[in-house]
């Protein structure tokens, strides 16, 4: 039987070589649930076995049930009639199948009927589902909404709203974007006010809302009339009702199974989540971080699907008397696709791992409230780790989504004319890929989020830790020292570039932030690959290829930065103009 988990050796490799026992310890909190729930694990080994088996279920459903329906979903899409969205039949069936298998409360605690799976396993599941149908990820992958409720809402709201999520009876949406507030969410204008009875209500419009037709909406709204910035915003839970109208369903390039809605709130009743004024700065930021890792997972899935088709085609297609995968131009394309998928996977999974430990630490610091010293120590460790998570999360989202676009484009190229036709699914992957580096924060915004950690030393601190860990293994692997030296050299190149960019004024650092972040990501991946290479000969080949190429890339980027080239700032009007004719 086809299975998108079991047939993917690199996911399985990551699963088997990452320290899942540590994750299980943080996630299960001394296995406190084992007497309370018959499906809770008894110990680490049991938990890891559960992770594997659940991924096998996801892999089977994805390969056998969801993937064959992908084309129909893409062609037919969803429909809007009388301000109500009806899911495509296959989308409905896919959701029903996932719900039946208890997969819609993937990370929620067991007391809310969830599976209590760690983020790392969820990210793998998101990838697997996305490979089958990228657009379904936008429903399966919206579980962060329930998680946000779990993290910040009152016990009463949680008890009422979370179990239906776990059962798959409801789906959610995060309603953030507005016509004039896209990347800049501080501009959100949708109004939240209290009626005569003191109940909160929402009035205004939200746009581009993924699954805006869902039953439970998390809405970012301006609750403080006189406060214009982000501090005037709060987060609300709003149930679908006659007061919420889907007034438009977007017609999109890709991910046709995911309904993108324009919503109108007509004094819709709602509930405040957490505290006022923390909507954007605390809750939405947390929500977005989870969602960004989700998009990284989605990107991996689309890229994998595209790569599989390209590899298969290149193997069977003959031109000039050979399979085209033996032609250097094609073999290089395929090699680069394969390596960059595995690079993005290593980065994204490591990010998920860090987030799991971070969440575990924060939970510990809360539950250790009685023991002040322990609570403080956990809180201190968590703070350190949260800086790393805030760096790795945008890096994963940026790198994976750009990789996904590149891989989908290369896959189409490998298929040539056939790839451009609707006869193969590659053109669909290409269209589906294009959203990944836009939504949940564009690549440009991810770079803005990541550059801080690169220039402030968070990255360098982590590099040193990774280097120290690998140095210890160098006596067993004679290739280790020279490889580590290459990475050290790249770090020096990075430092040079950063120092120069910082020394220049007038937006120079912003101009080259992307190149700097690129170098910084490459270094991380270099370390991750080296670690993987200690477990696999194949990964050593990959690490060698990756590191030798990254040094050259990094030097080029540094030389460009050091050149002082800034015509796009200095001579913009001259080169581009405004395009406005008077």
């Amino acid at each position, binding site marked *: 039987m086809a299975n998108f988990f079991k047939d993917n050796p690199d996911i399985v490799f990551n699963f088997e070589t990452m320290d899942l026992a540590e994750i299980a310890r943080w996630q299960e909190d001394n296995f406190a649930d084992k007497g309370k729930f*018959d*499906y*809770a*694990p008894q110990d680490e080994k049991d938990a890891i*076995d*559960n992770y594997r*088996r*659940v991924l096998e*279920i996801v892999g*089977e*459903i994805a390969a056998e*049930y969801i993937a064959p329906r992908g084309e129909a979903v893409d062609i037919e899409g969803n429909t809007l009639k009388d301000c109500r969205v009806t899911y495509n039949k296959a989308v409905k069936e896919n959701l029903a*199948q996932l719900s*039946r*298998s*208890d*997969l819609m409360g993937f990370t929620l605690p067991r007391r809310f009927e969830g*599976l209590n799976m760690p983020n790392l396993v969820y990210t793998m599941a998101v990838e697997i589902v996305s490979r089958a149908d990228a657009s379904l990820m936008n429903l399966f992958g919206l579980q962060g909404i329930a998680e946000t409720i779990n993290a910040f809402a009152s016990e009463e709201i949680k008890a009422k709203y979370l179990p239906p999520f776990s059962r798959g009876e409801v789906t959610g949406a995060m309603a953030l974007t507005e016509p004039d507030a896209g990347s800049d969410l501080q501009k959100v204008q949708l109004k939240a006010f209290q009626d005569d009875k003191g109940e909160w209500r929402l009035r205004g419009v939200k746009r581009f809302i993924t699954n805006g037709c869902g039953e439970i909406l998390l809405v970012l709204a301006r609750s403080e009339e006189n406060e214009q910035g982000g501090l005037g915003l709060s987060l609300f839970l709003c149930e679908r009702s006659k007061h919420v109208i889907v007034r438009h369903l977007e017609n999109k390039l890709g991910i046709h199974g995911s309904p993108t809605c324009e919503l109108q709130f007509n004094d819709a009743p709602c509930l405040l989540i957490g505290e006022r004024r923390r909507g954007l700065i605390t809750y939405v930021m947390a929500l977005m971080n989870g969602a960004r890792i989700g998009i990284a997972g989605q990107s991996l899935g689309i890229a994998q699907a595209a790569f599989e088709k390209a590899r298969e085609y290149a193997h069977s297609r003959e031109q000039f008397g050979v399979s085209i995968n033996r032609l250097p131009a094609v073999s290089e394309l395929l090699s680069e696709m394969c390596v960059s998928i595995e690079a993005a996977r290593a980065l994204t999974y490591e990010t998920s791992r860090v987030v799991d430990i971070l969440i575990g630490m924060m939970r510990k610091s809360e539950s250790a409230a009685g023991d002040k010293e322990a609570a403080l120590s956990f809180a201190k460790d968590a703070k350190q780790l949260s800086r790393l998570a805030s760096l790795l999360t945008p890096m994963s989202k940026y790198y994976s989504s750009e990789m996904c676009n590149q891989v989908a484009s290369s896959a189409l190229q490998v298929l040539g004319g056939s790839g451009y036709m609707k006869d193969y699914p590659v053109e669909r992957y290409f269209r589906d890929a294009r959203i990944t580096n836009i939504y949940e924060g564009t690549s440009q915004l991810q770079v803005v989020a990541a550059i801080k950690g690169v220039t402030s030393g968070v990255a360098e601190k982590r590099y040193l830790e990774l280097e120290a860990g690998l140095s210890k293994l160098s006596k067993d692997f004679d290739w280790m020292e020279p490889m580590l030296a290459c990475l050290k050299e790249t770090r020096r190149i990075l430092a040079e570039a950063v120092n120069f960019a910082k020394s220049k004024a007038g937006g120079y650092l912003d101009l080259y932030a992307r190149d700097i972040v690129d170098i910084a990501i490459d270094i991380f991946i270099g370390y991750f690959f080296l670690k993987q290479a200690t477990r696999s000969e194949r990964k050593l080949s990959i690490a060698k290829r990756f590191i030798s190429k990254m040094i050259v890339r990094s030097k080029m980027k540094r030389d460009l930065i050091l050149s002082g080239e800034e015509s796009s700032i200095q001579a913009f009007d001259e080169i581009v103009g405004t395009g406005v004719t008077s």
Partner: protein
Amino acid sequence: MPYHYVVLAKQVPDTKRVTGNAMKEDGTVNRAALPAIYNPEDLNALELAITLKETYGGRITVITMGPPAAAEILREAYYRGADRCILLTDRRLAASDTLATSFALSEAIRKLGHSDIVLCGRQAIDGDTAQVGPQTAEKLGIDQISYVEAVTDLSKSSFTARRNIGNGFEIVEGPLPVLLTVTASANEPRYASAKRLMKYKKARTQFEVVKAIKDRNPAATDESVKLEAKTIIDELACRGLVIEEWNVDTIGGKAERFGLAGSPTQVVNIESVVLVGREYKQVKEHEGALSELVEELKKEYIIG
């Protein structure tokens, strides 16, 4: 009283994954070379039982007759929604043909007491006889409806079902209890439920518990194995994780009707039919050539 659905299941070699060594020299299936799976149409029967339970309530008992390893498909039945699972296993049941199998199964079903609907797959992919279901119904003295695609109505005393009759369907009504054989077109069997899997992956038969103890400690005396097994089984039983093991003594019945003794079927000869292309014929490009070809194919009974 809530409905009682009894679902029959068989573990079969996965004949879809036939490789080079899938057949033995004598033309019989080399079971060791093929992965053992839940017979596909038995999954359709289980799925129908689960949807009936979801709609009308009740409980589901799954029975399989087979070697100790067949416990694996009972765990799979648990993952999907079975309430109780029974492994009918006994060396005395080995080499049963359809007659002896249906006799053993009917005795086991009788032993369960009241049942409303017995469901099984239309046929198993290893033998393809489609006889065990109907024969079981005969021995139980209840009605049988074969090729069922759906149960459209169910009440305390009667059912309505849709059966596939090849070129269409018919709607049949009848009294309970009844035995239904279910076709692949009936439904799409669900996948395992994650929660049920995490719970029931620990379900074990007595045989498996004993084997695990012996594997762990080959030097253990029979007495100590027995003692330890009892402790483990008791603990599993508290959590509802024991797969019941029945044998010939549990179900009763005359010894000569079980296993080889109760199997009159004899395989006289197995012919391996290999279809190969030998010649080809070019159809001329003129009107009527195609209809001539069709006529010829009809005459040869290739189409019709």
